[in-house]
């Protein structure tokens, strides 16, 4: 039949799309806005990418799956990257999502703690993340204390509740854009100590990692992906309110007061040039971890991170 014939030799078929699987570090929240918006606005499709977004329940899983070649890109954390590479995972940073630390040490605003040195003898809650102890140690030492002067408690699932209910005096590993808003929503003012101001080298909180061994095959797709992220980020910065609408359009259950508050706190922290690589950050943090015995050997920056746009 003519209809069938038309179907068969349809030369208007779209060009072959490149499938690309991306795994977030955790459930979708405002820090993932550039990825979500790029998807929402068709920025991936425009570049011939068919992006599949997944989220895990355990943030330690995505880099492993990238290393195993199961997925193409994962959202991870720079401090974790150093540990991963040190342990021999063939992963490499190919882009930045959040260009500053989000990690902060939180106390209640009404606790009377104005200075980290006042934490001596106090209880500090944390969620096992691998580097929490080192980061805290660095902050404490920066303020003339040491780990021995505080009691560390792993509170795993419930940083905010533990702090609000005063089960602990401070929590570390909290995200400044999120947990502060959370506390406020529950009617408790929080106070954040920004870790990069307390003796911890500056780093990129959220990065994209890819498999180093197959990087060359995927370089083109990854480059297009980062390109889309960059475009999305600019658009978010330019049109924050439209971006919010688009964001909650992805999943209506994202439309909560907490997310709205976190949204605002997150906007200034997106990497405006997601592909750009600040080699110093990676060198310094690697040195920091080596000095503190968290890694066995210093890897060159080229093993840790690449600039996709630099000619190979």
């Amino acid at each position: 039949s003519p209809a069938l014939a038309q179907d068969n030799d349809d030369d208007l078929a779209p060009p072959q799309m490149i499938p690309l699987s991306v795994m977030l570090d955790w459930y979708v929240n405002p820090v993932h806005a550039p990825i979500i918006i790029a998807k929402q606005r068709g920025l991936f499709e425009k570049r011939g990418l068919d992006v599949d977004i997944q989220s895990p329940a355990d943030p330690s899983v995505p880099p492993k799956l990238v290393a195993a070649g199961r997925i193409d890109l994962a959202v991870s954390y720079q401090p974790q990257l150093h540990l991963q590479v040190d342990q021999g995972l063939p992963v490499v940073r190919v882009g930045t999502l959040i260009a500053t630390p989000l990690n902060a040490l939180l106390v209640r605003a009404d606790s009377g703690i104005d200075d980290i040195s006042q934490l001596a003898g106090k209880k500090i809650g944390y969620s096992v993340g691998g580097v929490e102890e080192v980061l805290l140690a660095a902050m404490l030492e920066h303020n003339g204390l040491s780990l021995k002067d505080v009691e560390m408690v792993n509170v795993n699932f419930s940083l905010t509740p533990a702090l609000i209910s005063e089960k602990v005096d401070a929590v570390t590993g909290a995200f400044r854009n999120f947990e502060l808003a959370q506390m406020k929503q529950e009617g408790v003012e929080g106070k954040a100590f920004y870790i990069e101001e307390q003796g911890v080298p500056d780093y990129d909180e959220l990065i994209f990692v890819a498999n180093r061994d197959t990087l060359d095959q995927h370089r083109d797709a990854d480059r297009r992906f980062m390109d889309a992220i960059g475009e999305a980020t600019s658009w978010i910065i330019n049109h924050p309110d439209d971006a919010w609408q688009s964001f909650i359009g992805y999943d209506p259950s994202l439309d909560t007061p907490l997310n709205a508050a976190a949204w605002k706190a997150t906007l200034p922290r997106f990497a405006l040039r997601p592909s750009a690589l600040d080699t110093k950050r990676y060198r310094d943090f690697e040195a920091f971890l080596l000095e503190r015995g968290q890694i066995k050997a210093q890897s060159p920056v080229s093993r840790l991170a690449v600039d996709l746009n630099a000619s190979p």
Partner: protein
Amino acid sequence: MTDRLGWSRWMRPLLALVVLVAVWQLILTLTGVPRYILPSPMAVCRALIEQRGLLAHHAGITAIEIVAGLIGGILLGLATALALARFRALRRTLLPLLLISQAIPLFALAPILMLWLGYGIGPKILMAMVIIYFPVASTGYDGLRQTPQGWLDLARTFGLSRRQRLLKVQLPAALPSLASGLRMAASAAPIGAVIGEWVGSSQGLGYLMLNANARLQIDLMFAALVVLVAFALLLYFGVDAALRLAMPWQQDRITTDD
């Protein structure tokens, strides 16, 4: 016993519900637990109603996982119990392996499972199966071991093969014991599916709970929990009723009341 379908049958579970809600509210009032840790029953009710579409969607996914996991787990558990009872040589080898499968926290295996099974519904069903599997296999095996000797002797004089003896004598004799395991498995199935969802998924009640928890939508999390608990209760009493039908000769022998 006269009011089997009357009030004692339905009022008492209802009473349980009332007691539970009352205790819940009492805890809130007395200890002043903040609502982001334990929301009020009213708030959860509201979440249940307002978010019913969302809940129904995720509950549907979880229900499928539970049912598939239950069927798979029961079949696999039964097969294991039968194999253990049938092949003496297997026992000391297979039993430790079975135990090991139970003793491994699933999160340790999550990356492996994801690597092999991907993100689909497969690993969730597998998790539910693993959780259901053990009580069935364990009580089934215990039941199969305890067949009264007389029936085995009878089977022997009938010239039954070991296979027939296992299926026709030991298996029905193990039913009461197996029933115990099945009831337990039924009530554990929902949690199995939920754990499976934690391993990685973007749908289902487990996902919804973790997600709501991460966003501090504690009302929604508890609403999902209520649905989950309802599943567990339904399954338990459903399996219980099915077992009663399957064992018409077994009456509830509670005639100890004066």
